């Protein structure tokens, strides 16, 4: 269980790092805040007292409103959001340059923290890389493209609707909800597509093994190679095989020292499916067309402050933060698959089981997730 201990250690470290950065950032933010002493609004049943935290004229919830660990996470998120608002406003003050850097840093942290929440494709991307023959490098690239696309969707949405057409917040919300529903539907379709492809491979193999059965056990290995050879050239045999061979010329002479075990590994990795840009683009697009609610809020807020560009910059910085969180989670997922494979040692059947579970499980999870979220997104419109 080294993997779990390692993960736990890493998470604790990340949490500590974030906490230190956040407290440092908000501590530095305060002197910049030109509205610090302002009094909260008179709206509501009774006027609120002067803000105790230096937050700009924001309505104050009682600090004890949320208790416990989750409460702490909530309070951190809330204070981050307030700091972001202060950051955007500070750009109008004397310390515009310092404010801009602070805003970028805050947005970045907000992105890192925020991505832990829903709707940033963590589950989808982690499941996808585990289910497919992806490397850590490609996992990172996928996370960054998806986060970038989400940011661009949000910028385009707010830019066109609010900035150009002066649409209302309700209309922006409606559009954002539509995109969300489409995104979930596409995610479900991608999951279904991946799963179907894998099931077809399994079905073919089952058929082949049935066809081979009468030819006797002695000939099994040889036939197996022939029957499957047309698949082999898709593979990147860099990790499981110790040796490399050119498949285009060497189909039929496909004999290894490991014999049967090797074929099984090849079979299972084949189930995971080779790398293809088509698949990656499908995943990235389905995740990326759903704009992040947090980004939309920042953009519209910046717009009302007359600084749309600040919102765009904040959204991009946020996307980098989001991408890092998602990439870390995807890497963790890949790492746990790798550890699972290594623990099996030379056992081909074991590696086979790991690959089969990962690929079928990952695709099924994407399908399940997309379908559930799609169904949920068809529910009644939210008042706020």
């Amino acid at each position, binding site marked *: *269980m080294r993997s779990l201990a390692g993960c736990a250690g890493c998470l604790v470290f990340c949490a500590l790092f974030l906490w230190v950065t956040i407290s440092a950032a908000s501590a530095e933010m305060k002197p910049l805040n030109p509205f610090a002493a302002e009094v909260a609004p008179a709206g509501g049943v009774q006027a609120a007292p002067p803000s105790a935290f230096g937050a700009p004229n924001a309505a104050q919830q009682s600090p004890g409103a949320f208790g416990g660990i989750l409460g702490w996470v909530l309070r951190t998120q809330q204070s981050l959001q307030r700091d972001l608002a202060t950051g955007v406003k500070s750009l109008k003050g004397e310390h515009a340059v310092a404010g801009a850097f602070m805003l970028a840093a805050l947005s970045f942290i907000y992105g890192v923290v925020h991505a832990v929440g829903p709707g940033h494709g*963590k589950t989808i991307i982690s499941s996808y890389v585990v289910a497919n023959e992806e490397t850590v490098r490609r996992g990172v690239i996928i996370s960054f493209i998806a986060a970038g696309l989400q940011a661009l969707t949000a910028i385009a949405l707010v830019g066109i609707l609010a900035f150009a057409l002066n649409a209302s917040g309700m209309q922006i919300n409606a559009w954002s909800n539509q995109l969300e529903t489409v995104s979930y539907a596409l995610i479900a379709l991608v999951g279904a597509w991946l799963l179907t492809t894998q099931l077809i491979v399994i079905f073919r193999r089952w058929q082949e093994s049935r066809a081979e059965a009468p030819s006797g056990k002695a000939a099994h290995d040889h036939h197996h190679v022939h029957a499957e050879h047309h698949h082999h050239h898709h593979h990147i045999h860099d990790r499981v095989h110790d040796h490399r061979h050119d498949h285009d010329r060497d189909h039929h002479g496909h004999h290894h020292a490991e014999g049967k075990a090797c074929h099984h590994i090849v079979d299972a990795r084949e189930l995971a499916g080779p790398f293809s840009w088509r698949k990656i683009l499908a995943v990235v697009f389905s995740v990326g067309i759903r704009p992040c609610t947090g980004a939309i809020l920042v953009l519209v807020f910046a717009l009302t402050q007359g600084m749309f560009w600040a919102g765009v910059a904040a959204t991009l910085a946020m996307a980098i933060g989001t991408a890092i969180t998602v990439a870390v989670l995807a890497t963790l997922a890949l790492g746990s698959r790798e*550890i699972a494979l290594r623990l099996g040692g030379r056992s081909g059947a074991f590696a086979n089981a790991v690959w089969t*579970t990962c690929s079928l499980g990952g695709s099924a*999870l994407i399908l399940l997730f997309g379908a559930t979220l799609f169904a949920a997104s068809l529910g009644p419109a939210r008042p706020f």
Partner: protein
Amino acid sequence: MSPSELAKCRRVLTAALAVVACSGLAQDARAHPHVWATVRSEILLDDNHQITGIRHAWTFDEFYSAMAVQGLDKNGDGVYSAEELKPLAEVNVNSLKDFDYFTFVHIGDGDNLRLKPPENYSLDYDKGLLTLHFTLPLEKPVDTHKQTVDVDVYDPSFFVAFGFATEAPVKLAGNNVKGCTAEIKKPDPDSEEDAKALSEAFFSQLGPNSNFGSQFAQTVAVKCNDAHL
């Protein structure tokens, strides 16, 4: 494969899946709020110390406020008048019904009492913050003498984080409120609750009917004393 190998295989697979599941599944519902609402409520009492309804004033955070009023300054005078905000108030109040007005009135562990559609609703916008005012009448007034009536305010899906205001979060309103109290129940920062919250976050987050937010319920307990009637 030997039985011990098989057992090891299972353990490893469980661990691998657990990591993937933790990374995403856990929070990938709506476990984090995008809207923060500061609650101030008036408990409406009749002369017999029965609760007839609740008048809410919910002040939203500046991000949501900016979002909500975007494009509504029709005459472009820089002021969002009650008139200009009326369509938004209507949309808000009408769609609140599908979410039970985020208000749950109950006695002990009993069923939630039925509420009537909001009355006297309006929005005001002041210094960048939007406040929604509305009255929620109870279908049948509820007695507060022999029993404590709890009013919970929360969003079960936790998209909106409701919290009571620091100052004067709850008031009693009526001609005869003597002997009555409305106290905010402090959320219990018990670790047990956190554990429950986490396990709920893990396992019951997927459905649209998730009740994740209930652990963050903000509760007012209303009670009246006979002696003062």
